[in-house]
């Protein structure tokens, strides 16, 4: 009886304590409900913000607000001289979270790393069999084909064996899908018959402990008091995601003080936000590109002169003003200027409808032609309003006699048909994954990708050779040279018209300290405090 009283007292004290520091609560107006909390299964930023960036860590991580790879759960690593073997030395004393059903009995070790990757590599992994899932991001990065094995050398050392040299391998491991799961938790879930809880009750080593999720309403986290990184750890006691799908409502809530950070503001609102004395807008040039791809397999887009004519008749500055509301910079290359190996000497063709008309006549189309122009049905980080952009391009092209019909499909259908090559010209784009040039040039324009992300279907040997060579070269100076040259070829051949790199804006309340905008479009709240 007395014990019970004591427990009660302690509990009420605890409750009082956690409430007393409620000033340490950060509310983030997020843009949507995550599909789940198992980062390996998903590809979208909304999912990663709610799991990988809060609950989990990776072996190596991107420095907050940068593309630089820094130690995470691995303190250091060695690469063999042939570049095929990576040995990671793990951090000791890292604790996993606990919740109502799971209390970890041991610290993080090599078993957890092996489990995490075995589950993604091995179709016969016991856990994967009990809870079948796909790992689309992992396979899109070419990991299943390239990783020969992941082995435990000793309890605190793990070795990855690769098939071919991959210059971006380390950066890939820093991506959200490579978040380290707990092998002990997985075993327990398997034993209890609830393997699906890995997706709804996540356990990780990250800065915040998952507490509760209500679909379309909120996600609640509390600080991980035992977090290993004191400098970049949690600085608020409670982190709450207030799920608010409408951007103007997010803005209103921010103004009303109902949240302290808001995701994805509408470009049109940014000027107002900047003028608001209660708000602070963090700005970073975006790590993305929005472009117009020409399907070079379709006539007359196979003709270079036609592509040049279409390219030079588009009024980019007007698009930047109307669609991006000034929140973007004109894109010249298919990768942003902040990406290393960006070629500054490449220049856009001058906006010149008269010359474009002449080029069309020369190419045999004095009266223009009909063409389909595909516009995405959704807002993407690289393109806030594809329909509006399409309307503007349509009107620009009409002036040189090209009659464009705007086509749109439901998002999944759009991508599927575009991969199948049904379009003539298509508005689409890309957000960088890992800060490697290969992730732009090869992924968007390489021959390997013509049935996938290469919506231009452009497979051009001189370009492809450079890009392939770049991927298997380790020396950065050498790679820079190759990629710089590849960008020149892309501009000459014009398989696409690059439109813009959108600026990422993140409005916060004035009392939020230490928030950094991620180039990858992620939102991380460790190291962030509220005054």
């Amino acid at each position, binding site marked *: 009886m007395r014990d019970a009283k004591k427990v009660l007292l302690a509990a009420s004290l605890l409750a009082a304590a956690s409430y007393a520091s409620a000033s340490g609560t950060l509310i983030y107006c997020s843009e949507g409900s995550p599909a789940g909390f198992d980062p390996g299964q998903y590809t979208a930023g909304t999912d990663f913000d709610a799991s990988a960036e809060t609950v989990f860590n990776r072996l190596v991580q991107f420095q907050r607000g940068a593309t630089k790879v820094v130690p995470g759960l691995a303190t250091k690593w060695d690469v063999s001289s042939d570049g095929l073997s990576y040995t990671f030395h793990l951090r000791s004393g890292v604790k996993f979270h606990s919740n109502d059903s799971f209390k970890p009995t041991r610290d993080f070790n090599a078993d957890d790393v092996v489990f995490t990757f075995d589950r993604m590599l091995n179709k016969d992994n016991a856990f994967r069999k009990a809870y079948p899932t796909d790992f689309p991001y992992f396979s899109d990065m070419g990991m299943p084909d390239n990783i020969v094995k992941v082995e435990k050398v000793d309890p605190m050392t793990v070795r990855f064996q690769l098939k071919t040299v991959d210059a971006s391998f380390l950066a890939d491991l820093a991506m959200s899908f490579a978040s380290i799961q707990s092998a002990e938790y997985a075993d327990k879930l398997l034993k209890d018959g609830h393997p699906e809880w890995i997706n709804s009750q996540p356990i990780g080593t990250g800065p915040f402990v998952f507490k509760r999720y209500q679909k379309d309403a909120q996600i609640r986290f509390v600080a991980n008091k035992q977090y290993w990184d004191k400098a970049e750890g949690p600085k608020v006691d409670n982190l709450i995601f207030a799920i608010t799908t409408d951007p103007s409502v997010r803005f209103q809530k921010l103004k009303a003080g109902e949240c302290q950070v808001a995701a994805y503001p509408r470009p049109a609102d940014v000027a107002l936000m900047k003028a608001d004395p209660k708000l602070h807008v963090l700005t970073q040039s975006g790590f993305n590109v929005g472009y117009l791809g020409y399907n070079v397999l379709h006539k007359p887009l196979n003709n270079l002169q036609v592509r040049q004519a279409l390219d030079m008749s588009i009024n980019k500055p007007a698009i930047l003003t109307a669609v991006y509301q000034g929140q973007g910079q004109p894109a010249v290359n298919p990768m942003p200027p902040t990406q290393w190996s960006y070629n500054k000497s490449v220049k856009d063709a001058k906006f010149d409808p008269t010359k474009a008309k002449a080029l069309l006549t020369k190419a045999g189309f004095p009266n223009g032609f009909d063409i389909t122009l595909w516009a995405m049905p959704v807002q993407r980080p690289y393109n806030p309003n594809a329909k509006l952009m399409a309307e503007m391009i*349509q009107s620009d092209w009409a002036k040189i006699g090209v009659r464009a019909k705007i086509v749109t499909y439901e998002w999944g259908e759009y991508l599927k048909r575009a991969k199948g090559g049904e379009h003539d010209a298509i508005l689409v784009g890309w957000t960088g994954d890992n800060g490697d040039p290969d992730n732009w040039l090869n992924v968007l324009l390489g021959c390997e990708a013509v049935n996938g992300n290469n919506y231009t279907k452009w497979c051009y040997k001189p370009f492809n050779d450079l890009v392939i060579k770049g991927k298997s070269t380790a020396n950065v100076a050498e790679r820079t040279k190759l990629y710089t040259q590849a960008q020149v070829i892309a501009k000459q051949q014009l398989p696409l018209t690059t439109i813009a790199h959108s600026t990422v804006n993140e409005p916060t309340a004035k009392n939020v300290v230490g928030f950094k905008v991620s180039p990858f479009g992620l939102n991380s709240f460790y190291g962030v405090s509220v005054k």
Partner: protein
Amino acid sequence: MTTQVQMSAEDKALAYPSPLKEFWQGFSYNKGAVMGLVFLAVVVVAALFAPWVAPYNPIDQYRDFMLTPPSWADGGTAKFLLGTDEIGRDMLSRLIYGARLSLLIGLSAVLSSLIPGIILGLLAAFYPKVLGPLIMRVMDVMMALPSLLLAIAIVAILGPSMLNTIIAISVVSLPGYVRLVRASAMTELNRDYVTAARVAGAGTLRLMFVTVLPNCMAPLIVHATMSFSSAILDAAALGFLGMGVQPPSAEWGAMLSSARDYIERAWWVVSWPGLTILLSVLAINLIGDGLRDALDPKLKRAA
């Protein structure tokens, strides 16, 4: 027009005013209805003669005048009376051309649910054994799904476009017509004049369309008017959810939907389309009320 059949059976010694005149007297008694009619007439004229009435082409982009306020507001110019939208298109011209689309969608949706509605309703009334209950069950199923959800699902299947908006709205409003036609036809079927026509050897088709149908017209006309206005509202809702008419066409709901992005900065892009929808729908509903009063005083009861 609708009372002729009954009249012939009654005492002709009473001097009735002409049906049209009688109708107009009833209708014009309702001041709101007349106001609605005048407003709608203005909208219809503007829509029909849009190329002459509208100051600009609705898809011409004046990129030096993006988001210009209405002419009387600060920063407005006399060139654009109601201001311009996000890429410098004239609001007034877009609203006028938008009237074409909205009226066309409303009218086509009404016609394409009215005609099958009449046929199915009459069939259900004339064959009460098997076909009737079957039709009514199917209609019940359609009625159980909230109309907007059903319309969204249909548009998702067919893809967003003006034609598919019309199809979705007419499918959704079909059950209302079928029920109404069936109910009024069932009442008429028990009347003496129908029995008389039957005895006189009229075929089923003749009974359906010549004998019974004209006497069901009064409630049908009222219902059609009301569903005309709700078709405009539904089309706007679909456009608002991005599932209606596609750009660059100026449809009121779609205009409102894209204007939402500028609600903080440019009140006019949000206000005009919304106000236009409200006023047009209100006008049509007022006319519907007037029609109800004029055609059949008993109908006042139906909501």
